[in-house]
């Protein structure tokens, strides 16, 4: 599965007094997206499913909503970051794919607006601060509709269990060695 290379500057975490010397979280699962925009909220829906699980071990689950950087800001250092987000993969709705940050579209900068402190900006800021998690993977889900709705489309809702499986497969200790991400 694609993984990002360890970033060179993670030692910055130790410098940051904001983290008050807290140990790094082994794994943080961050669901992001707008709950009001149909399938755009798939990451948040998935995070909510995981938040009520008690069998995840040393895993912190966050509902990042439409402020992913802010959600990360409150937890301190992170060893492995698994992001769940809607992604335009050019595939059928409900398609799931694990991506490295490098596979995401290059950041063209024009999305740095206030409504759009988006994933790529958040990651680039963490890199600039030397605080990007050593491992970052994005589990992207192809949306069917991002119209105004608090519900997932049937096509994406039907894949929710598969999305959770794909997310948890990114945690090596849990892994069965079997590649669980499938199109």
């Amino acid at each position, binding site marked *: 599965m694609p993984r990002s290379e360890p970033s060179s500057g993670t030692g910055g975490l130790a410098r940051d007094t904001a983290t008050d010397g807290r140990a790094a979280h082994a794994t943080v699962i961050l669901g992001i997206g707008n709950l009001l925009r149909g399938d755009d909220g798939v990451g948040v829906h998935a995070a909510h499913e995981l938040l009520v699980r008690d069998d995840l071990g040393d895993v912190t689950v966050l509902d990042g909503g439409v402020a992913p950087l802010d959600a990360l800001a409150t937890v301190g250092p992170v060893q492995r970051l698994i992001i769940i987000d809607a992604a335009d993969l050019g595939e059928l709705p409900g398609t799931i794919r694990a991506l490295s940050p490098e596979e995401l*579209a290059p950041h063209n900068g024009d999305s740095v607006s206030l*409504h*759009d402190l988006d994933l790529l900006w958040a990651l680039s800021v963490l890199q600039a601060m030397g605080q990007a998690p050593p491992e970052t993977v994005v589990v992207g889900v192809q949306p069917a509709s*991002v119209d105004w709705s608090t519900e997932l489309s049937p096509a994406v809702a039907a894949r929710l269990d598969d999305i959770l499986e794909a997310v948890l497969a990114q945690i090596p200790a849990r892994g069965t060695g079997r590649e669980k991400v499938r199109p």
Partner: protein
Amino acid sequence: MQTNITIDPLVRVEGHLKVECIVEDGVVKDANCSGPMFRGFERLLIGRDPLDAQQITQRVCGVCPAVHGMAAALALDEALGVNASIPDNGRIIRNLILGSNFLQSHILHFYHLAALDYVDCTKVAGYDGPDENLKSVKAFIDRGVLAPFVPRYEGDYRLPPEVDRAAVSHYVKALMMRRKSHEMLAIWGGKMPHYVGIVPGGATESVTPDKIANFMSRLAEIRTFVDDVMVPDALAVAGAYTDYFAIGKGPGEFLSYSAFDRETAQTDLTKRTRFFATGVATIGGALSPVDASKIREYVKHSHFADATSGKHPSEGETGPDMVTGHSWIKAPRYDGRPVQVGPLARAVVGYLSGHAQTKALADTAISALGVAPEAMASTMGRHAARVLETKMVADAMADWLLQLRPGEPTAVPVKVPEEGSGLGLVEGPRGSLLHYLDIQGHKIARYQMVVPTTWNCSPKDDRDVPGPCEQALIGTKVKDTENPVEIVRIVRSFDPCLACAVHVVNVRRDTVAKVRAV
């Protein structure tokens, strides 16, 4: 490996603001602000449990959830009949949550969104000193990745290299200060973002000495940062770009609903004692109380049926009509006139009201910069007002924190009535926010919001009077239409809560440059 995968920014963008300028002989002759995306959340609320509004409206935006939650809670307080009985602890916790959001938002705007208009971050490339933040940024830039520092317009960077480098180091430090603000909000909000700690009737987190101490230590760090770093940086930028005290003036009328309740016995929010001053003021010195019944929204230039024009938000409709207009943003007017909202508006209203903290800070800054008080109504004045307000709110929060009483109640119980209505008026970081809610049969029958950016970036109204940002742009000299730095600086000084697409159009209306204000 598939390389061309896009996470389309539009997926998470609530709306893009488009600003079109007609430039003739190097001067902006006309300007049009448009919001090209339909805002559907008001309709989405109809038929729901009213108590959901406080949570759902927070999901609208990743930067302003705190104030939307606050405005919804105020509207619900009234609709549920508990607006006069919020316990002091609940009132103060709400203020601390909203205050934390003011701090992170103003820090974000100054350092991460606006500063790059004035600070040349490429100066970091030549850095070989010991500053850890700069070394980190330099290593990042050396890898050839310039985001998040691009795109930008070239030229017209006037600060000395050492000031530029200090500002980039502060860019990183400011991110850490935002983290502190988020942690502060999370202490009382229960989670970040999209907190759950404010509810109709008060707040949910109990008050303990531990929470007060945790909050206090973080606030102390932020206050030190604001005093020692942010205010001096703002003065340095303002001092190097004094011409921007004469650029981007906008209409001379200002609105503030105020915010941060000092009591809740008064149920009329325009009369409630709050921390900021409230009123409608002109730069000429006139000051009058806010009368919420004078707010109307016009839609001649918006994609809404013209029959819905000129309505008060309590009668407002969200009936799309693509045939008419060019924008999804309505044109709110106060007593028929466009008004500026935001930190500058609060500063003008506060100054004329004799608000002690506002006057002291403004007088100090005006004298340090050697500008006339009237010059604060400008691009640079908006930035100065925002930074000074950061200090004012941070200092006040330290006092509020000490007024909390551990063990005492934070909320009163609420019951959703068969029928009811409520008006939430509050100031957010970007300005005046109104939520109106109507309950029928225990469900939401109508929900309307008038948000700060609709005041500032509204299109022309039914009498074709331009909105505040449009007025600020008209008459501006643009030295280079390929590089319209003046326009983006003006637009950004309003801190619009939308992505901005700026189209510079020459007199033949050919688009000569299409750029985004970031």
